[in-house]
């Protein structure tokens, strides 16, 4: 397994993002919200990088910046050596091809009026690449029958929809797969199927995985490196097993203690 050996693929340094609340007074500007306060991280090629945090920790803001869906107030993000912070959309084509996202809720991330065939092919069409047999190939890779192509998202269960979302993300043959809470909306019996599928695909395709979750035990299963976020900062980072066994930061310890487990029942 290529642990840490890979070259840096995503390098973020000093990322800051300040939002402004709507103004409540005519004379004063709206209150500033510091969603990210100088976050730096490095994701290497082939690495499985987990980001853990609670709501309001800034993990979603960080993710949006890494995917160039938002611009940082300060700081830089280099993807494969190229600066992406602040680039206009027309110059982000390479990123849209090399980095794809799977969102938490597969119902709202899949257009209900599009057939699975069109949903999965959409990234290819958007990039102007030929579709060919790619849809069937992708559906097969995520364990869905070819007949699924002609159906609509609502005809599938939550787990199957997440498979469709994964197939679509893999369509342009990305290097990096970003998964934002991909199993939080799923039933326990289906969660394992999707986590196994992600692990298989990451292995087979040699992907780099950025995995965001509020659940440290899910990240421990999936990732080798973890960054724990709290209040807009990364408070602890390192190998998952080390952080799990010996959390150094007080917040990480609180987080670990709070996660309900079945450890006592063996």
């Amino acid at each position, binding site marked *: *397994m290529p642990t840490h050996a890979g070259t840096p693929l995503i390098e973020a340094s000093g990322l800051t993002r300040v939002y402004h609340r709507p103004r409540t007074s005519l004379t004063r500007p709206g209150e500033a919200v510091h969603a990210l306060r100088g976050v730096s991280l490095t994701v290497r090629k082939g690495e*499985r990088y987990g980001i853990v945090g*609670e*709501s309001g920790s800034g993990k979603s803001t960080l993710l949006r910046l890494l995917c160039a869906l938002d611009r940082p107030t300060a700081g830089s993000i280099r993807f494969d050596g190229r600066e992406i912070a602040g680039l206009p959309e027309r110059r982000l084509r390479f990123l849209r091809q090399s980095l794809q996202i799977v969102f938490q809720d597969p119902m709202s991330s899949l257009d209900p009026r599009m057939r699975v065939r069109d949903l999965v092919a959409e990234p290819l069409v958007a990039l102007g690449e030929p579709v060919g047999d790619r849809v069937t190939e992708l559906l097969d890779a995520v364990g869905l029958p070819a007949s699924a192509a002609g159906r609509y998202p609502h005809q599938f*269960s*939550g*787990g*199957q929809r997440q498979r469709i979302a994964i197939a679509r993300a893999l369509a342009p043959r990305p290097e990096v797969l970003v998964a934002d809470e991909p199993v939080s909306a799923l*039933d*326990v*019996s*289906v*969660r*394992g*199927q999707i*986590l*196994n599928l992600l*692990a298989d695909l990451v292995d087979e395709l040699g992907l780099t995985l950025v995995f965001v979750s*509020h*659940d440290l*035990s*899910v990240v*421990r*299963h*999936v*990732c*080798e490196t973890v960054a724990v976020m709290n209040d807009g900062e990364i408070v602890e980072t390192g190998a*998952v*097993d080390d952080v799990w066994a010996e959390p150094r930061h007080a917040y990480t310890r*609180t*987080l670990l*203690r*709070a*996660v*309900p*487990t*079945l450890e*006592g*029942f*063996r």
Partner: protein
Amino acid sequence: MLSVEGLTIAADGVELVHDVSFAIAPGERVGLIGESGSGKSLTALSLMGLLPEGVTASGTARLRDRDLVGVPESRMKDLRGSELAMVFQEPMTALNPLMRVSTQVAEVMTLHGVPRDKARARAAELLGPVRLPRPEQVARAYPHQLSGGQRQRVMLAIALANGPGLLICDEPTTALDVTVQKQMLDLIAEVAPALLFITHDLAVVASVCERVLVMYGGRVVESGPIREVFTRPRHRYTEGLLAASRLTPRGTRLPTIAGSVPAAGTFPGGCEFRNRCPHADTTCEQPPALTGEGHAHACWHPADRG
């Protein structure tokens, strides 16, 4: 305290919950676990008399000496909020955004005959025991000014306002952060008079309840003390669910249950789990009965015979 006998819920001729029976003693905390579509929420709603239009319940459910099933709404509305109360998953939709917190807590008391001024005074007192910081300030706030955890505490204060005999919680912490969830679970375990706790999360139920009912396809497939059920599951579904819930370190495969939960009305006859069960054979075409004292299971080929 609560005894449910042969509870069956149907909509348009399709049976969604079949012949569910269980009892909860005073002070007991019972978990009802199952995945989406298992019928756990319907079971709770039927006890509250809140089933949607066109969905009907039969069988009996008695709380102390009062019937809860097949009772007209005029009777149910006297019981609801006083004899039994419920905390729902989403505290934002359960609270009225246009009313101050204190008014909402007082409302549930005035509805049940407490004089207005007395209810108002008591409302502020109720916010302390659910561990809201600065209760007097929270009392004057509107729901949007509170965090998710605070809102859920307000919901709990409302539920406990009239001293109910039974508290039903339906996924009360699913929308909360883990650190807030832990505080909320500890609080619920502490203040509940008798508790029916509904969740899909096995670890959550293990930290709150003493006894557990496992539902699948509208049936209770296994029930018993948490420790017994979770260490020595008998039903193959419980076994699979427990295995899938234990996240192992990286690089190992997670055990899974094949397929997914069928849509309502499309479960196979006989044992509802047989189309996903690795141990199913022709015996399973007959519905297995829930058998066993204390730790009961409904499976033809139970695990852990030894």
